[in-house]
């Protein structure tokens, strides 16, 4: 491939990786801080996308829908934690896997009952719908650049939250020693609820942002789920930096894999994961 094409593929890889990071960040937070494995994470992504569709149909404005959707997703996450996940902290991983697997089925069917099984589209807001010409045949959509920027900003925001705020300090302490934090007078239950809700909101936000450039359809959570898992495994559970690095790695592996070894493209991501695991069985930036 020529140099221009190579550069454009790098741009594609970056953008794809950043969006993956957004989805996976919530997963690694919930894993790392609360030690819960959550298979329903892909469903939150789907819920975000359908929320974007439903709200945009009503308001006609994607930006407004996202602004409305984030607190809605956050509240939903808090409710879910209070109802179900709070009971899982003391349970073993198997039970967490199964309960969250059951949740996937429930969410998919509820989606089918409330929103039907049709494929839907969401319009890109007019001000971002242009494309920048990169070569004489190819243009790059402005909206995709916007998504990349948003994801980077969120990565920075998460880092700032975790490292520079009191809440972040409490979260990090709570993941190391739950009882100690509680004895210091901090409401650990509320803390965990906040973290979980944040994880759900991040996944839903990813779904909302991606909705215009992907379609909104049944089963969209499934493929996102598995690749999120791979990213968290490679990056190390609980590490936001690890998730970012792993997501970018996957973005590049997937993009260039499709171009260079198309017949093995479906396997490339897993081969990368296997290679990383041989080198570091607990991920690149394992926690602690």
């Amino acid at each position, binding site marked *: 491939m020529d140099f221009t094409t190579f550069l*454009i593929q790098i741009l594609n890889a970056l953008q794809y990786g950043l969006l993956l990071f957004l989805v996976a960040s919530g997963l690694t937070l919930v894993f790392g801080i609360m030690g819960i494995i959550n298979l329903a994470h892909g469903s939150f992504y789907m819920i975000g996308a359908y929320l974007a569709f439903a709200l945009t149909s009503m308001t006609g404005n994607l930006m407004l829908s996202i602004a409305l959707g984030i607190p809605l997703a956050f509240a939903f996450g808090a409710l879910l934690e209070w109802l179900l996940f709070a009971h899982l902290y003391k349970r073993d991983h198997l039970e967490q896997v199964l309960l969250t697997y059951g949740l996937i089925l429930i969410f998919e069917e509820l989606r089918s009952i409330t929103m039907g099984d049709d494929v839907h589209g969401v319009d890109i807001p007019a001000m971002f719908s242009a494309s920048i010409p990169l070569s004489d045949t190819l243009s790059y959509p402005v909206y995709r650049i916007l998504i990349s920027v948003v994801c980077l900003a969120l990565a920075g925001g998460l880092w700032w939250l975790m490292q520079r705020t009191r809440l972040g300090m409490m979260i990090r302490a709570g993941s190391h020693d739950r009882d100690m934090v509680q004895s210091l007078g901090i409401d650990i239950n509320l803390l965990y609820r906040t973290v979980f809700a944040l994880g759900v909101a991040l996944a839903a936000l990813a779904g909302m942002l991606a909705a215009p450039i992907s379609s909104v359809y049944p089963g969209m959570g499934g493929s996102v789920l598995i690749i999120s898992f791979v990213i968290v495994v490679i990056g190390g559970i609980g590490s936001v930096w690890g998730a970012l690095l792993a997501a970018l790695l996957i973005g590049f592996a997937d993009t260039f894999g*499709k171009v260079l070894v198309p017949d093995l493209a479906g396997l490339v991501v897993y081969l990368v994961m296997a290679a990383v695991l041989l080198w570091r069985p607990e991920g690149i930036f394992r926690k602690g």
Partner: protein
Amino acid sequence: MNKEHGRTAVRSIVGLVGVAVGAMLPLAAAHAAEKVKVGLMLPYTGTYAALGTAITNGFKQYVAEQGGMLAGREVEYFVVDDESNPAKATENANKLVKRDEVDVLVGTVHSGVALAMAKVARDSKTLMIIPNAGADELTGPLCAPNVFRTSFTNWQPAYAMGKVAAERGHKTAVTLTWKYAAGEQAVNGFADAFKGAGGKVLKQLTLPFPGVEFQPYLTEIASLKPDAVYVFFAGGGAVKFVKDYDAAGLKSSIPLYSSGFLTDGTLGAMGGAGEGLLTALQYADGLDVAKDKDFRSAYAASYKMQPDVYAVQGYDAAQLLKSGLDAVKTGKLEQGAMIKAMESATIDSPRGAFTLSKAHNPVQDIYLRKAEGEENKVVGVAAGKLADPARGCRM
């Protein structure tokens, strides 16, 4: 005293039974109307639910038009939701064939499921009519005397599209589809026609199913600079691809062609990105076929929505079944006679009349359509009376 009660009770019961039997006899005689047990195995949940419903509606529409009976037989429906799940397909088919003992199996949408059904049909020698699944092999290497299809092979619309692409003066093409059987068969169909007319397929790109991250491929297509691009996608992937293709500026620089599934039922969700796309399919909007006009108004009246190609295929499945039933008038359903009649039937379809090839697949006109608004308007015939080559079928 108790003995007397007992005898009275027995006599009463015998009397009641006698009356009941007596009352039922004339009813039994009236219900001696013959039945035909139709087993519908279609997706009623999941991504393809709308297609399963459309096929069922089309089928029942025809039966309703015949006064609720087919060739003087009452139709008894047995329905199974196959959920487009190949892993449960065999047992689902067995529910209809072994448990409900249907006379004919009608289904399905997903080719993997259809393959499992066809095996059950062959092993149990049950008649089977496929109202959608386009897997070439079902009327190819795996063809069977009791398996019929009223839809298409993946090859057919793709071949027609390839023919048109060559006729429009394109010399080079790149194809893109998912790495799955339907995609491969479609691309081969396109290539057969395109290369046959002297064109060159520069590259056959595939991406893992059901991925929708198309950017790397769009970039590659742009760098290859072909005269035309042929793709095979359906459902959510189709919507995303067309939007991405448009946003990447390729829609205006490199013409895009596809089998009709790209734009059937998806134009709304594309939000205008699909406007003007040329596709090939055995059905279209605005056909100048009398039967179609009647079919459309009747369907819209019954179901409060417009029919699509799936409804037509379901409608035609019922027609084909009737042609078989006509040959056995009354009594037991003799399969040999039914098959003979079905093989030589001419189906008066809303898509235009068609016959079946020796491999039991429609020999039909493939229309060239243009996307306008939310419709795919017919602009010509891409390939007339096109028959699938049925390579590997030994019938």
